[in-house]
């Protein structure tokens, strides 16, 4: 096994981890504050991808040299997912706060409806964004020669998301409120904070991250129906491994799962799927709360 090969596989793993982190951090954020296991998180990813692509495609069709099409599509995808998340929280989930099983079932129902609606409106053909010029093609990388610019951008974006979330949670008043709400929602309300509003903001952010992942994921690889389930499962596995509600844990979980998946595919393609779940089972056996998770509330 050459060093070049090892670096490439690891980079591929980190690229995948970056995408997983972007998507799963939104899932983790929502779970952390609201204890809502949002089974429609993968659907929010799809909404981001589909709506973003619809906007991108119409701009691109009118002017194929329009470099801004991708960026506009990105914004549209994030916004569409955020809006969908807000609607979910306000219309369905907000008033069943604390009833986790009911929320899980409702979001499963929503995910089925959303998948069907996307199929009805956008059809079932796979599609893929074209990356804008700045992110297109290869970039020279030491040892391995060159590597996809967009994939490197993906890693950078995940870092930016991680740093941004850290700053938001630790350096802003909204972040203080969100963390206080994770600790004790009722006491936060007794401090005069409009907790449902914080919940909606958090849901918008978490859903927007899923939408961001959708556009980025659909630029890196063609997207087809069914990815909602894949990304929901991956988000679940990542936050279970990393620890529910912890952004740092989500990062570690995403890296572990992403890198393991790529190495698994490189070394034993047939069984690579099992590796992901083997990691989850191993972590659950040793640290049921996840690597960085806290026990209890």
């Amino acid at each position: 096994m050459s060093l070049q090969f090892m670096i490439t596989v690891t980079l591929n793993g980190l690229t995948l981890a970056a995408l997983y982190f972007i998507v799963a951090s939104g899932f983790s954020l929502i779970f952390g504050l609201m204890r809502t296991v949002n089974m429609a998180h993968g659907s929010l990813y799809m909404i981001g991808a589909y709506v973003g692509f619809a906007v991108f495609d119409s701009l691109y069709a009118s002017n194929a040299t329009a470099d801004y099409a991708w960026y506009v599509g990105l914004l549209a995808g994030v916004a569409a997912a955020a809006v969908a998340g807000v609607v979910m929280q306000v219309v369905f989930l907000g008033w069943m706060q604390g009833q986790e099983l009911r929320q899980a079932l409702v979001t499963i129902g929503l995910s089925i409806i959303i998948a069907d609606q996307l199929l009805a409106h956008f059809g079932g053909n796979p599609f893929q964004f074209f990356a804008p010029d700045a992110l297109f093609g290869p970039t020279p990388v030491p040892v391995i020669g060159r590597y996809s610019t967009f994939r490197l951008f993906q890693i950078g974006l995940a870092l930016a998301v991680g740093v941004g979330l850290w700053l938001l949670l630790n350096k802003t008043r909204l972040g203080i409120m969100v963390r206080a709400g994770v600790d004790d929602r009722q006491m936060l309300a007794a401090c005069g904070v409009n907790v449902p509003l914080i919940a909606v903001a958090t849901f918008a952010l978490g859903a927007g991250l899923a939408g961001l992942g959708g556009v980025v994921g659909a630029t890196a690889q063609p997207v087809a129906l069914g990815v909602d389930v894949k990304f929901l499962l991956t988000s679940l596995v990542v936050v279970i491994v990393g620890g529910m509600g912890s952004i740092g844990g989500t990062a570690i979980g995403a890296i572990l799962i992403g890198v393991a998946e790529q190495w698994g595919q490189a070394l034993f393609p047939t069984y690579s799927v099992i590796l992901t779940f083997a990691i989850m089972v191993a972590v659950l056996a040793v640290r049921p709360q996840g690597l960085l998770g806290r026990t209890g509330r």
Partner: protein
Amino acid sequence: MGGRLEIDDLHVNFGQAVILQGVTLSLDRAPLSLVGRNGMGKSTLCHAIMGMVAAQKGSVTLDGRPLLGLGPSRVARGGIALVPQGRRMFPSLSVHEHLLLVAGRTKGAWTVERVYETFPRLAERRRNGGNQLSGGEQQMLAISRALLMNPRIVIMDEPSEGLAPVIVDHLIETLRAIAAEGMGVLLVEQNMRVATSVSDQVAIMVTGQIAATMPARDLEADRDAQRRYLGVSHGH
């Protein structure tokens, strides 16, 4: 500052369990202590006033404005702050963040600077987590968190619980100063010394009702009433 809190015929059930059965109580300028044995419903009353538990019947008003059904955040913004039993710090927040969380949303005498002047200990510990503080420091922080909302009425649920006697002395001073400034104080206490040092009047709660309201001195002097209502032979 200050306000008139009226609680009238308040009933609270938890499922089949009847916890408050017609509490009637009013608080005006003077601080009032509420005493009673464990499990009599004192905390439930605090929570019902704040809107943290639902009431089945009765009314709670602040200066004539009904509070029931508003929910805790609007009750808090309406001018009532709670220092909860067990302090309920936010483990994820530092001391300073606890203060930032509530600071600046209301105009009034209490600001973060004033909190740090009043409780220099908190200034020293401003970077520490809410759970890394001693019991006394936590209580100061819980009180500060309430004061920074510049409420008209502050409800304190057993603030002396678990504190060393010297710290309790300091607590008494703090509570008296708060009351002297004109903020309404409803003090739930099991410690008779604290109750009688802070307020002239004491209400006694027995199984979800106010059994009696009497001058604090009288209850202090009346060992028999203390035994009957509080199950203590001596203020502990």
